[in-house]
C-alpha cells in the first residue's frame, strides 16, 4: 500500500518565495540609509556621466580674469579654479575620471580575481597552494606602497594607474574568492552535485559561483572607496591622471595653494572625494547587511 504522504502545511513561512538576489534587493529598498546614499551616489554618478550635457560651462577653458572666484560667484556657483575654469563643470567632468578610477580597477579585480580565486579554490591542492603563495608575495607589500611603486614604475598616466590599482586589488579579491570557494567546495551540496555526474565547469557555474559572488561583491563594494582614494592620492602625488584632465585628486593638488585665498573652493575636490568615498563605504555596509539575511 503506497501511502501518499502529502502533508498539509500551514507551518512554514508565509512570505512568498523570492530568489536570493531579489530578497537582497527587497531588503536594500527598505533600508532608508541605503536609499539616501544611493540617491547621493546616483546624483554624483549621473552628473558625471552626463557632464557634457549638464555642465554649465567648459571644463577645459577658463579665463584669467576670473581665476579663483569664491563660492557663489555669478555664473560660477562653486567658483573657479586657478585658471578661471568653472568649478561646477570641472567637478562634474572630474567625477567621470575619479569615478572611473574608483570603479574600473575594482571591476577588473572583481572579474579577474574571482576567476582566479574560483579556479584556485575549486582545484585545490598544490595548484591552489602555488597560486596563493605567489599572491602572498604581493600581499607582502603594503597597498599604498605597491600602488606608488607600480605607478612609479609604469610612469604616470591614467591607464597606468588603473593597471596599478587593479594589480593591487586582484590578490585581495582572489583571497576572498578562494577562501569562500574552498569553504563552499566542502559543502555537501557540491558532493551531491558531483554525485549527479556534473562536471567541474557546471558545478562551478551553478553551485559555486552564486555563493562566491556574494561575499566577493561585498568585499569589492568596500574596495570602491579605497580605489578612489588611492587613485586620487596617486594623482595628488603626480603619478596619476595628466592635466588638463580634471580629476578630483589632481584638482585638489593644484588648488592646494589657493587654500588661504579661497579655502572653500580649494576644499571642494577633497570634499567630493570624501563624500563619494563615504557613500561607497556606507553603501557597502548596507549591501553587506542586506546580504546577511539568509534564513
Amino acid at each position, binding site marked *: 500500500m503506497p501511502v501518499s504522504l502529502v502533508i498539509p502545511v500551514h507551518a512554514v513561512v508565509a512570505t512568498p518565495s523570492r530568489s536570493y538576489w531579489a530578497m537582497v534587493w527587497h531588503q536594500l529598498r527598505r533600508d532608508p540609509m541605503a536609499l539616501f546614499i544611493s540617491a547621493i551616489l546616483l546624483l554624483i554618478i549621473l552628473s558625471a556621466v552626463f557632464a557634457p550635457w549638464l555642465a554649465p560651462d567648459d571644463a577645459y577653458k577658463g579665463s584669467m580674469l576670473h581665476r579663483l572666484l569664491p563660492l557663489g560667484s555669478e555664473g560660477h556657483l562653486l567658483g573657479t579654479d586657478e*585658471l578661471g575654469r568653472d568649478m561646477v563643470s570641472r567637478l562634474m567632468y572630474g567625477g567621470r575620471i575619479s569615478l572611473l578610477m574608483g570603479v574600473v580597477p575594482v571591476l577588473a579585480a572583481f572579474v579577474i580575481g574571482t576567476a582566479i580565486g574560483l579556479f584556485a579554490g575549486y582545484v585545490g591542492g598544490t595548484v591552489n597552494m602555488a597560486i596563493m603563495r605567489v599572491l602572498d608575495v604581493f600581499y607582502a607589500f603594503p597597498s599604498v606602497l605597491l600602488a606608488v611603486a607600480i605607478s612609479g614604475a609604469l610612469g*604616470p598616466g591614467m591607464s597606468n594607474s588603473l593597471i596599478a590599482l587593479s594589480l593591487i586589488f586582484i590578490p585581495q579579491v582572489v583571497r576572498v574568492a578562494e577562501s569562500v570557494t574552498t569553504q563552499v567546495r566542502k559543502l555537501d551540496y557540491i558532493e551531491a552535485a558531483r554525485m549527479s555526474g556534473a562536471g567541474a565547469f557546471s558545478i562551478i557555474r551553478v553551485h559555486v559561483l552564486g555563493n562566491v559572488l556574494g561575499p566577493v561583491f561585498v568585499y569589492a563594494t568596500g574596495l570602491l572607496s579605497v580605489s578612489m582614494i588611492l587613485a586620487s592620492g596617486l594623482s595628488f602625488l603626480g603619478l596619476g591622471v595628466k592635466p588638463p584632465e580634471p580629476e578630483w585628486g589632481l584638482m585638489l593638488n*593644484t588648488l592646494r*595653494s589657493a587654500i588661504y585665498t579661497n579655502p572653500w573652493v580649494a576644499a571642494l575636490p577633497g570634499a567630493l572625494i570624501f563624500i563619494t568615498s563615504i557613500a561607497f563605504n556606507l553603501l557597502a555596509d548596507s549591501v553587506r547587511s542586506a546580504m546577511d539575511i539568509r534564513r
Partner: protein
Amino acid sequence: ETVARYGISMADIPLTTGQPDRGAGAYQFTGHTLYDPLIAWEANISDRPGKLVPGLATNWKVDPKDNKKWLFTLRKGVKFHDGSEFNADAVIWNLDKVLADKSPQFDAKQSAQVRPRIPSIASYRKVNDYAVEITTKEVDALFPYQLPWFLISSPAQWEKMGKDWSQVAMHPSGTGPFKLDKLVPRERADLVKNNDYWDKKRLAKTDRIVLVPIPDAMTRVNALLNGQVDLIETPPPDVVPQLKSAGFKLVQNVTPHVWPYHFSTLPGSPWTDIRVRKAANLAIDRDAVVKLMNGLATPAVGQMDVTSPWFGKPAFKIRYDLAAARALMAQAGYTKEHPLVAKVIIAQGGTGQMLSLPMNEFIQQSLAEINIQVSFEVVELENLYLHWRSGAAADMNAGKGITAINLGYVTADPFYGITRFVDSRYVAPNGVNWGGYNNPKVDALVDKIRTTFNTRTQDGLLSKVHEIMVDDALMLWVVHDVNPHALSPKVKEFVQAQHWFQDLTTLRM
C-alpha cells in the same frame, strides 16, 4: 648669536663636498657659502645685473700669444676652514679632483656636477705657488664665465677625513664666508659665520644660517607662517596675498631664467614654419600669466630679459596680438577645421618649472584660440631631462610625435643663455640645441664671440645672436622667473641679486 632659518625648496641639502648638486639654485646654499671660485659672480647687488669679479684669483688674463692659455694669479694669505693654506697646488688638486679620472682624489659625483660646466678646459699647470695656467681646447673668450661654477675645496681636509668624500661631506672645508657646523641629511644644515673670511666686505651679517629643506611649497609657506623658518624660497603665487596680509615681505628680482616652449625645427615638425612660431608667440597674454603667478614672474619677450646687455633690438616685437597671430596662422594654412596639432612634453613640476601645470594649461588654452591644438606628454622632471638631452630627433621624442619641450632655462651667462641653443655644433647628442636649429650666420657669429676678448664687443655680438634668435622665434617665450623669496619681519636685510647665485652673507636679522 643671530640665527636665520631658511626654508629651501630642495628635497635634500645639496652636496657639501665642493661642487653642489641639484642645479644652479644650489650654489647659494652649499656652494658659494662654504667655498669660493677662482672667478666669482657679483651677487651682493640687486639693482643691476652682476658681473664677474675676482674670487680666489685676483687677476686673470688670456695669453696674447696663445689665446688658448689663461693665466690666473692667486690670492695670497687665504686659509681653508681647516687652517691649511690655499695655493696653486690646491687649485691643481681641485682641477684633478673633477677632471682627472685617475687621480686619487677624483670624485665622480663632483665631477659629474661641474665637468659639463667647464667644458673648455683642456689642460692646466702650476706656474708658481700663486699662479696657475689653464689651457682651453679652443680659443674661448667666454671661458671666464665658466669659472664661478668651479669651487675649491681643501685637499688637507680630504686627507684628514681618510680620503673619503662621504666623510668630507659631513665635515667640509673651504675658504668661503661660512663654515658648516652641522649636517643632518635631508633635514638641516647649519652654516656658521667664518670670522676669518678673506673678503672683509663680505663678512656674514648673520652668525648662523640654518638651511631647512622643505620641497613642498605649501609646507614651506606653512613653516614660514608658523614661524618655524624666517625666510623661504619660491612661495606659491596663490599664497602671496595671505603672506602680505600677515606682514611678510616678498622680495624678487629679475632672474636669468626663462620659461619657454623650445620648438623642434626638424623636418616633419609643424613648427618648421616661422609664421607658426611667430603666431604662437603672439598668442600669449603674458600679463595674464604674470597675474596667474600673482606677480611672481615677468613677461618674456625673448630669451633674455630686456634689461640684459645681450638683449639687443630684435625686429620681431613679441607681444599679445591675437589678430596678428590668427592672420599668421591663416597664412600658414591652418583654420579652425584644420588646426595645427602638436604634442609638447612637459614636467609636472620641479625646480625651475614654476607652476608647470597651470601655466601649461594656460598656454594650451591660449594656443587653442589660434587653432593650435596642443596635447601634453607629462613626465617627471628627471625624465624630461632625458628627453631634452636626447634631442628632438631622438626616437623617444620624434617617435612619439613630440615637437616641443617645455623646460625652464637658466640664462645667466652667454653660453648657457644663448650660444648652446643656437650653435649647430651643439645639436643633440653633442649638446642641447634641442630643436636642431642650424643657421650658418649664427654659427659664424658664435665663432666670433669666442675669439673676442673685449667684453663690450662680445656683448654686442651676443646681442646680434639674440636678435636673430628672437626674429626666428626659436622658442615660445612666456615669462622669466623672478626667484621670489618671502621673508618674515624678523629679517632685516636681504639683497637679492639678479641671478640664481645669491649671497647669503647679505642676510641680516
